[in-house]
C-alpha cells in the first residue's frame, strides 16, 4: 500500500524539530508501521516521526495541527485492536526514542518514565530496590508504558493487583493542539476532576502522554503456584468460580485450553502439559510466606472438587516458572500453527464463565473454525483466539461472523466487549451493543474537549455514525486486508 502524500515543506519542518534521522519516509521502513499486533488491518502512515522529549512532541504536534494533519501515537505496536493504525492520512508519532526511566523514587514508592519505556524494563530497574511495576501484560517484554496507559492494559497478576489505571498517578500530556499540560501527580490534590483516570484508556484520542508517573509495589516475600489439569474446559472455569466464591485471593488464575496446550506442546516451547487434557489452570498466590501453603491447599481442594484429574504444585521458583511456561508461551506457539490469529477479548461476570465458554465453543464449531482459549479467568476476561488463514476469503468471512456472535454472547451474559485490548478500529461498531446513543455522544463530546479539530488518532473507538453525527463529516474508511 502506498503512503499518503505529505507536503515536502511539512517534512522539512518536522526534520528541523527531530533531526533528519527522526523522520521516516522510506516506504520499506514504513511497512513496520502499517499495522499493530492485529494484522488484519493495514494502513500506511504518511510518515513516522521519532521525537525525544516532551518539547519535541509538542513542536511536532503544533506543526501538524497547523496544517490540519492527523497524527497517531505509537509505542511498540503490540496493540490488538488496531489502535496505532494511521488512518486519515495520519503521521505516526512513535515513542521509540523516549524510552528512559527518569526516576525511581524509592522513598515515595513511585517512578517517572518516558512513554516509550518498555513495561518490563521498569520492573527490571525497580527490582534492585525491592519494588516492581505491578501491571504485567503478557506482552510486557515488548509493550510500552505509554501504550499501557492508552489501553489501560491488564495482565495475569491484575487479578490481585489491579490494572494500569490503579497505578498511574500523574501524566504529562501534549494536547492535540500542542499545549503541554500536567494531570495529577503524587501529592497533587488540586485537580477538579480525575483527569488522569479519564486519560488512561483513552487510546491516544486525547493527546500524547510524554511522561508517566506510576506507583511501585513492594515485591512480595514469596509466591506459590499450582497447575490443575482438567478433562473439561467448563470444569476448569467452575474451579475458578469456586476459588473466588470461597474468598481466596490468588495473585493470578489463568486458563489454557486443550487446543492451546496441544499447540504449545508441539512447539519448541513444550512445557510438559498433558496433550489429552482439555484445560490447564494456573493458580498463583503471593504475599507473606506463612500462609501460602494453606491457601494453595484450599485452592487445590476447589480444583479437585470440580474434577481436576491432576494437580501439580511447584516446590521451588524454577518449578513455578515451569508451571507457567505453557501459559506464557501460548501466543508464540499459536502463531506457529496457523498463519493468522484473531485474539479476541471480552469480559463476563465470573459466575458466567462456564456457560459463556460453552457458547463460544459451540459458535466455533458451527462456523467450522479452530478456537483456542488462553485467558485471565480470575477476572472473567476471555480471549477466544480464532486461528485462520487470511488468504482464504471465505474463511475470513466466517471468522468475522463468529467473532461478532462471540461478542454478543459475552454481552448477553452481562459482560463487555473488551477487557483490556481496547476498541481501536476493530470494535468500534460493537460499542452500540453496550452503550446507548447518548453515552456514545457524550464520549464524543468529551473527546472534543481535548481534541476539537479531531486530529488525535481519528477513526478510533467510537462508531462512525456517532462521529459524523457530531462532527458532520465522515472519516476515512479503514482498509481491511
Amino acid at each position, binding site marked *: 500500500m502506498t503512503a499518503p502524500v505529505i507536503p515536502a515543506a511539512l517534512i522539512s519542518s518536522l526534520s528541523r524539530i527531530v533531526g533528519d534521522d527522526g523522520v521516516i519516509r522510506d516506504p520499506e521502513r514504513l511497512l513496520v508501521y502499517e499495522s499493530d499486533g492485529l494484522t488484519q488491518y493495514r494502513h500506511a502512515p504518511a510518515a513516522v516521526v521519532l521525537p525525544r522529549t516532551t518539547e519535541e512532541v509538542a513542536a511536532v504536534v503544533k506543526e501538524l495541527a497547523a496544517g490540519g494533519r492527523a497524527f497517531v501515537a505509537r509505542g511498540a505496536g503490540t496493540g490488538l485492536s488496531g489502535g496505532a493504525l494511521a488512518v486519515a492520512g495520519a503521521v505516526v508519532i512513535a515513542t521509540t526514542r523516549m524510552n528512559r526511566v527518569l526516576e525511581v523514587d524509592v522513598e515515595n514508592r513511585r517512578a517517572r518514565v518516558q512513554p516509550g519505556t518498555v513495561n518490563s524494563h521498569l520492573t527490571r530497574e525497580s527490582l534492585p530496590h525491592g519494588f516492581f511495576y505491578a501491571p504485567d501484560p503478557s506482552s510486557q517484554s515488548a509493550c510500552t508504558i505509554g501504550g499501557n496507559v492508552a489501553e489501560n492494559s491488564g495482565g495475569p497478576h491484575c487479578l490481585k493487583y489491579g490494572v494500569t*489505571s490503579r497505578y498511574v498517578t500523574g501524566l504529562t500530556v501534549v494536547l492535540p493542539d500542542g499545549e503541554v*499540560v500536567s494531570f495529577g501527580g503524587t501529592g497533587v490534590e488540586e485537580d477538579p476532576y480525575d483527569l488522569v483516570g479519564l486519560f488512561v484508556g483513552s487510546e491516544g484520542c486525547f493527546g500524547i502522554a510524554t511522561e508517566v508517573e506510576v506507583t511501585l509495589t513492594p515485591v512480595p516475600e514469596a509466591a506459590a503456584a499450582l497447575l490443575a489439569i482438567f478433562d473439561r474446559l467448563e470444569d476448569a472455569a467452575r474451579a475458578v468460580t469456586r476459588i473466588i*466464591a470461597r474468598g481466596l485471593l490468588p495473585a493470578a488464575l489463568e486458563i489454557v485450553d486443550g487446543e492451546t496446550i496441544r499447540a504449545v506442546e508441539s512447539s519448541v516451547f513444550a512445557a510438559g502439559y498433558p496433550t489429552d487434557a482439555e484445560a490447564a489452570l494456573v493458580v498463583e498466590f503471593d504475599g507473606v510466606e506463612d500462609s501460602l501453603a494453606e491457601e494453595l491447599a484450599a485452592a487445590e481442594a476447589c480444583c479437585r472438587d470440580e474434577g481436576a484429574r491432576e494437580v501439580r504444585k511447584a516446590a521451588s521458583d524454577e518449578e513455578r516458572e515451569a508451571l507457567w511456561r505453557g501459559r506464557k508461551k501460548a501466543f508464540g506457539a499459536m502463531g506457529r500453527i496457523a498463519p493468522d490469529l484473531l485474539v479476541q477479548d471480552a469480559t463476563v461476570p465470573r459466575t458466567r464463565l462456564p456457560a459463556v465458554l460453552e457458547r463460544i465453543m459451540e459458535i466455533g464449531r458451527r462456523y467450522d473454525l479452530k478456537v483456542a482459549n488462553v485467558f485471565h479467568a480470575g477476572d472473567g476476561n476471555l480471549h477466544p483466539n480464532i486461528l485462520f488463514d487470511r488468504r482464504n476469503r471465505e474463511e475470513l468471512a466466517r471468522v468475522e461472523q463468529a467473532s461478532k456472535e462471540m461478542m454478543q454472547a459475552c454481552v448477553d451474559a452481562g459482560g463487555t466487549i473488551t477487557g483490556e485490548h481496547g476498541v481501536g478500529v476493530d470494535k468500534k461498531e460493537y460499542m452500540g451493543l453496550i452503550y446507548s446513543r447518548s453515552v456514545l455522544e457524550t464520549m464524543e463530546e468529551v473527546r472534543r474537549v481535548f481534541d476539537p479539530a479531531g486530529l488525535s488518532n481519528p477513526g478510533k473507538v467510537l462508531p462512525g455514525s456517532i462521529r459524523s453525527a457530531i462532527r458532520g463529516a465522515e472519516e476515512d474508511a479503514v482498509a481491511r486486508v
Partner: protein
Amino acid sequence: MRWLVSDSVAGVFEELLSADGVLVPSADEPWTVRGRTPDVVALPADEEQVAASLRIAHERGWPVVPAGAGRRVEARAASREGPLVVLSVTRLREVVHYEPADLSLRAGAGLSLGELGESVRTEGQWLGLDPPGSPGRTLGGALAGCEHGPLHAGVGRPRDQVLGLVLVSGDGRVLRLGGDVVKNVAGFDLVKLVVGSRGSLGVITEASVRLHPLPEVDTTVIVPCSSVAGGLAALRAAAAVPHPLAALELFTPPPSTALVPAAARALVAARVMGTRRSAMRVLDSVRKAFSSHGEVIEPEGLMGGDLFRLAGGREENALIGIRVGALPSHAEAALGPILGYLGEAEAASESREGSSRSWVHIHGTTGTLRFGMERGESDEGEPRDELERETLSELGRALRREGASLRAVRIPASFEGVAAEWGASSGVQRIARQIERVFDPAGILVEASP
C-alpha cells in the same frame, strides 16, 4: 414575595414527582444549604424522575444541589440567583443486582453504606469504601465526594471500587457508564470523571461496586506517642514494613477514646487484614516498627475500622476541612506550618463561645494530610473574621511554595475566596470547565461537599 416563587417551584415538582416526592422545608424539616433554606427538596423515586426533575431545572435555569441523605448540605455559591432546589436520591435505595460469587453489587445511590455493608456481610463480603463520616452516608454521596478514607492504602481509591454507574446529567440525559465486570476498557472512562465530581456533572442514581471477601483477621494496632515528632517516627517506621497494610494513619491529637492515655499528643494506627497466619506475621512486623516509639496497644474488641471511623467523624463534622497533598517524603515539612496555623486559629477562637478543636490526620502511605477545625457550638456556618482568612491564605502560600497542594473539602462560605487561590493550572481548569459544559450545558448544578 419569596414564598410565591417557592410555591410555584414546589408545584412544578409536585406535578412531576407527586406530593410524596416533594418537600418544602420548614423549621421542623431542617434542610439547609449553607444556612439558606432551599425552596424545594425533590425526592424522586426512580431514575426517570431524576431525569425529569433535571430536565425541568435545566429548561428553567434553576440551580440544583445534588444530595444524598444529608440535610445540611455544604454547597458553593448557595447565594446564586433564583429558586434553590435540592435533589436528594435518598429514595433510590434498592439493591438492583447482587451475585455474591461475582464479588460485585449494583444498588441505588441512596442506599446507605451501613445498610449495604450489612447485606454483604451476611455473604462474607465487604465494600472497601470508607469516606469519613457515619454509616448513614449514601453510596452515591460517597462516590460523588472526593474524599478517600484510610483504607485506600490497602484497597485503592473509591474510583477503583466502582465498576459502573448511572449518571443523570445536568440536562437530564440518563447515562449508563461502565458495567458490572471487573475489567472493562470499552470506550472512554467517564466513570473516573464522575467519581469525585461532587455533583457538578450530574446526579449518580445507581452504582455497581467491587466487593471483597471478609478477611479471617481484621485488626488494628496503635501506638500513642507523647509528641507529634514521635508519632511521625512511628508512622515512618510502619510505612517501611515490607507488607501491605490495610490502613496506616497518624492522628494528632488522638481521637478521644478510653484506649489512649490523656497525655498522648499523637496516635499512630495500623490496620491489618488477611488470613490468620499472614496477619500474625504482619502484626509482628508492625509491633516491632512501633515498639521503639511508645507502648504498643492491641485493643481487645476493637474491630479493624472502629478507631478510623471515630477519627473520620471529626472530619465529617469539621467546620473547616482541608486536604494537603505532598510527597510522603515532604509530609513532615508540610506539617510544621499547618500546626502553626491551627495553633493560631485555636487561640483566636478561644475568645469565642464553644471554642473549636483542631486536628491533623496523615495517611502513612501517600503523604496526604488532612487538617481541620471541629465545629464549635456557635459555629453553624458562621463566617470567621478577616484575620483568620488571611492566616489561612498565608498558610496556603507557604505550603504551595514547598511543592504541596491544597484542596478544600469543607469550608465556610466566607473562605471560598481563599480556597479559590489553590486552583489547578489554567490548562486543567479550562478542560474542567469544558467538561462541565458537556454534562451540564445550562450550568445549573451546584457543586456540593458532603
